């Protein structure tokens, strides 16, 4: 609708556009959400939560950079990337289907979150952000590109859109790796320190869970192990351009073989959820 001025557009009556907080419109409104044949609904829900929680939790960490980024341009870029990931999270949590996106985000306990631990690590400095974003987006782009062939048309459509978005995110992070790695001796050291913080959580990215294995067989999910070679190639290419060694560090194991995908998280996760969920838990059912 066209308005003569901005004031008119925000004062129009009978308007739900200011219903922020909880109570958003269903982002899959009108989309056929029937499940593909031969797929266990609980598996599909768990898988959507894995992919959705990765996006939701990292989006939250990126949002913590608002007003903290080193330059205005990066402030805007990081916020935009956070928004894209939040959009992916909304659709994936909605696709999970058993509860609403708000219930999944705000009323689940820590052990019910299925994100990889890489996404929940504390905010860190800008080099850690760069290292984490580069690692995460390189991995996620490889996952999403494969997911475009999913037998679930909703996941395939979300992935097709996500590939376009994450391509920009990965380029942004990779260019910062090059700029810092091939910058001054100081920026290079900081970049290497950034990689040292996140690299122990890289191994977890390629370990398939039971749910993923079953959904790979059903033609719906992606085997994360299948992305490792592509991931290593991209990392090698960017590190060569940045003139830094390819990072290497011993993996930090989960507990008895269980990590993020099983709901076993690092200490940082509880603090993150406390902030993410506090308003919704204080005022359940509120919309404003």
């Amino acid at each position, binding site marked *: 609708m066209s*308005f003569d001025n901005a004031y008119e557009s925000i004062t129009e009556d009978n308007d*739900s*556009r200011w219903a922020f907080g909880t109570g958003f419109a269903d982002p899959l409104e*009108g989309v056929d959400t029937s499940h593909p044949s031969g797929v266990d609904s609980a598996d599909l829900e768990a898988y959507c939560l894995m992919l959705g929680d990765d996006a939701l939790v990292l989006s939250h960490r990126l949002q913590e950079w608002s007003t903290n980024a080193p330059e205005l341009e990066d402030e805007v870029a990081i916020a935009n990337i956070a928004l894209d990931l939040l*959009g992916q999270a909304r659709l994936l949590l909605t696709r999970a289907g058993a509860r609403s996106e708000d219930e999944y985000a705000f009323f689940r306990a820590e052990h019910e979150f299925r994100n990889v631990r890489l996404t929940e690590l504390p905010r860190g400095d800008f080099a850690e952000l760069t290292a984490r974003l580069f690692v995460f987006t390189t991995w996620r782009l490889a996952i999403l590109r494969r997911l475009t062939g999913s037998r679930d048309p909703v996941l395939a459509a*979300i992935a097709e859109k996500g590939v376009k978005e994450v391509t920009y995110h990965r380029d*942004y992070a990779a260019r910062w790796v090059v700029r810092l790695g091939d910058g001054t001796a100081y920026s290079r050291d900081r970049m290497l320190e950034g990689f040292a913080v996140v690299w122990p959580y890289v191994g977890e990215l390629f370990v398939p869970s039971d749910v993923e294995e079953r959904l790979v067989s059903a033609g719906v999910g992606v085997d994360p192990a299948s992305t490792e070679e*592509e991931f290593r190639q991209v990392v090698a*290419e960017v590190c060569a351009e940045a003139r830094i060694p390819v990072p290497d560090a011993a993996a930090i194991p989960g507990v008895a073989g269980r990590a993020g995908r099983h709901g076993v998280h690092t200490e940082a996760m509880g603090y993150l959820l406390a902030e993410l969920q506090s308003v919704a838990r204080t005022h359940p059912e509120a919309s404003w």
Partner: protein
Amino acid sequence: MVNVVSARAVAERVTDPELPMLTLAELGILREVFEEDGKVIVSITPTYLGCPAMDTMRDDLLHALGEAGYPDVEVRTVLAPAWSTDWITERGKAKLADAGIAPPGKAPFTAKGPVPLTLTVRDDVTCPRCGHADTTELSRFGASACRALRRCPACGEPFEHMKEI
């Protein structure tokens, strides 16, 4: 009986909340307008999955059609095929340029294999103000996810560029 042609004409006049100089139709966001059980069904597609303007677009379509005499309207989301800047019409691209936003070029071909990295900055976006062909990228992300910030060395002005996606 719903007059689908005139309902479509109404829907096509609804403008984008963030780029009000363009209609949803010119942006390629408006997909279909058809009748189902006496109801007008309008389908739209998000430019980005996190696009915060989807709710506003839905409201604006309902209001415009309601005022035009179509009380029974449903707006549906369509995710596939994914929106691309290639769907912006030629008229839409011309309007973007008139508004000082460099229109997108051809969207990159998404190969079946791994997505190639782009580590260099494009310098071939033409300045929408003075037409200078060689401009500088300031940031690949602008005021919204779909726009990048650039500067023209000839006229010295900053401008936005709608990114190919």
